[in-house]
């Protein structure tokens, strides 16, 4: 179940296609989360939204296992558990769902935006959540907007849950006025502190209007139109980018904002699009860039020349591998990603070392065979694999920490480098 195909990707300047290393594609057991996991950070980001998963006990158990601590604080997520009555046709699923939502909104009137999140079971039984969302939106018009998206493992891998959620928000965005001035939109759920840092930089650069999508409140979602230029802050937002383009917005191509170089390139794409003077731009980013480089240098001694193996998890693997190779001198042996978006990843792929094996999809047992053969200095993997690999003598890094820690931008570059340096430092210090 594996195949290798050569990849031709258009270069950054729309010149002749660049042929890049072959992509290893495998299909087997995938050791990754489903898209429901995205709810954990999305419900923190959009502060008056509620995420109602329509699924089974497994979905409720997943959310509880993954977000355990938050569950006790009346969180803004829950599961409507499908029962045998619903499946056997003794109860009408749609009536049941309406009843559950009515009860929820009665209890929590502060909810302004309700997402009905599809799961594997709801999709297999073909429960029409689109129609349910529309019906409930009409019923609760004026107080709560009801949208839907699929976070099922059948449709979405881990961070693709965020992609599905944001894509569901796009059709409802207010259209900007026809003659509006160009506006910048940052796309992707970033920690508030990181977002504020970027907004400050853009303001200093002289870009007048900058919006974040998603906004922190349901009622504050940004407008969209042909005057919108958007920058993807995350590499897993393919559907969202397409939905934004369908509304007329224009994507600005850039590296993803990891590390000093990635962040500079990302900010530069905005500066170019808005006609900011080059010297002014450089003077604005200089302090942040310097800070980032100095912070990264602390980790360089420990990381330079070390090999690293990424198992697929969040789609952050390629940009992070590029950052580690380019700015820290690490050697990526294999970079596995659940899905490789050709267009969005083109600038990243161009900067990876030529010998890097890039794999898309996964057969976890075969990939682990390759890990054991290669004995990398550092293996980035999921929580289900980390301790077993440590027991085999391999140093690991929890991939999920890269999703939940602030890692974007100049001020987090040092922290990002340290996330990789820490396991190696620990290995050197611990004597077992």
């Amino acid at each position, binding site marked *: 179940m594996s195949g290798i195909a050569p990849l031709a990707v258009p270069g950054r300047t729309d010149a002749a296609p660049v042929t890049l290393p072959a992509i290893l594609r495998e299909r087997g057991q995938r050791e990754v989360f489903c*898209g429901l996991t995205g709810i954990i950070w999305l419900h923190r980001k959009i502060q008056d939204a509620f995420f109602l998963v329509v699924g089974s006990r497994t979905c409720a158990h997943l959310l509880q296992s993954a977000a355990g601590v938050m*569950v006790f604080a009346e969180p803004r997520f829950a599961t409507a*558990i499908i029962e045998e009555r619903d499946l056997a046709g003794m109860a009408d699923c749609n009536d049941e769902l309406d009843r559950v939502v009515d009860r929820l909104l009665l209890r929590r009137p502060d909810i302004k935006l309700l997402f009905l999140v599809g799961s594997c079971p709801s999709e297999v039984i073909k429960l029409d959540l689109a129609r349910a969302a529309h019906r409930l939106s009409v019923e609760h018009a004026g107080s709560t907007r009801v949208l839907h998206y699929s976070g099922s493992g059948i*449709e979405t891998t881990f961070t693709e849950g965020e992609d599905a959620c944001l894509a569901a928000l796009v059709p409802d965005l207010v259209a900007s006025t026809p003659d509006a001035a160009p506006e910048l939109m940052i796309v992707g759920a970033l920690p508030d502190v990181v977002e504020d840092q970027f907004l400050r930089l853009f303001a200093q650069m002289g870009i007048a209007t900058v919006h974040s999508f998603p906004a922190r409140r349901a009622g504050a979602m940004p407008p969209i139109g042909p005057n919108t230029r958007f920058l993807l802050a995350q590499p897993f937002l393919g559907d969202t980018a397409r939905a934004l383009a369908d509304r007329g917005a224009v994507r600005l191509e850039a590296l993803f904002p990891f590390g000093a170089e990635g962040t500079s390139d990302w900010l530069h794409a905005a500066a170019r699009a808005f006609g900011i003077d080059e010297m002014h731009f450089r003077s604005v980013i200089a302090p942040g860039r310097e800070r980032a480089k100095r912070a990264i240098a602390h980790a360089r001694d420990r990381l330079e020349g070390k090999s690293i193996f990424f198992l697929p998890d969040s789609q952050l693997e390629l940009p992070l591998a590029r950052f580690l190779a380019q700015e820290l001198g690490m050697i990526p042996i294999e970079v596995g990603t659940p899905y490789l978006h050709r267009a969005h990843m083109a600038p990243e792929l161009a900067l990876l070392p030529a010998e890097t094996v890039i794999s898309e999809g996964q057969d976890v047992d075969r990939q682990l065979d390759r890990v054991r053969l290669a004995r990398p200095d550092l293996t980035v993997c999921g929580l*289900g694999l980390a*301790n*077993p690999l440590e027991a085999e003598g391999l140093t690991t890094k929890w991939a999920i920490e890269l999703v939940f820690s602030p890692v974007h931008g100049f001020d987090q570059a040092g922290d990002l480098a340290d996330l990789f340096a820490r396991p190696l430092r620990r290995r050197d210090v611990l004597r077992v």
Partner: protein
Amino acid sequence: MQLTVWTYEGPPHVGAMRIATAMEGVHYVLHAPQGDTYADLLFTMIERRDKRPPVTFTTFQARDLGSDTAALFQTAVREAVDRFSPQALLVGASCTAELIQDDPAGLAAALRLPIPVIALELPSYQRKRVGARRRRSTSWCVRWPRCLLPRRRPGPRSGTMETKHCPRLPPTSRLGPGLRRGRKKEERAPAPTSSARPRSVSVTAMTWSRSRACWKRSG
């Protein structure tokens, strides 16, 4: 449908994973969609085990639903048996796979493996009741854990399940003080002899019925 903020219990296939992990020489092939592998971290992180649970997931996605998930399951079984060489194989379906009705038991049996195949019935959508009168407000009964018991079944088979490897599983379905009451004849199976004749076993989920003070089949 029940609005649930938190649940006392995990789904039954996770209980089966716990049993497989507690045993040696056993491998569990679970027909499940992508994402159900989250359960691995219950073992590797919360219990800090130094090995992955002995479970292979088929992790089917949308594109597999459009083609042949049954073949996917059989490939997973074959590869798991080749790679891990278990003495016995557990097969089952998680809640979603139960809905696509692929029959993991039949699919595994069709492979004619040289080891016994134990098919697990894991009804994921049923609610347990603790007595008809005292209806709990929480949906899922928390009092008595499900117990998976091997049940004798005649039929072609090719290996014995060594009960000494699973001390917590009694050799028959006899368990509990109220056993004799209301039991059908075939369920009062005798304890296994030490006959070398191999048997296949199937496992069914049983729950303790408090009102009747006996074990009964779930659902």
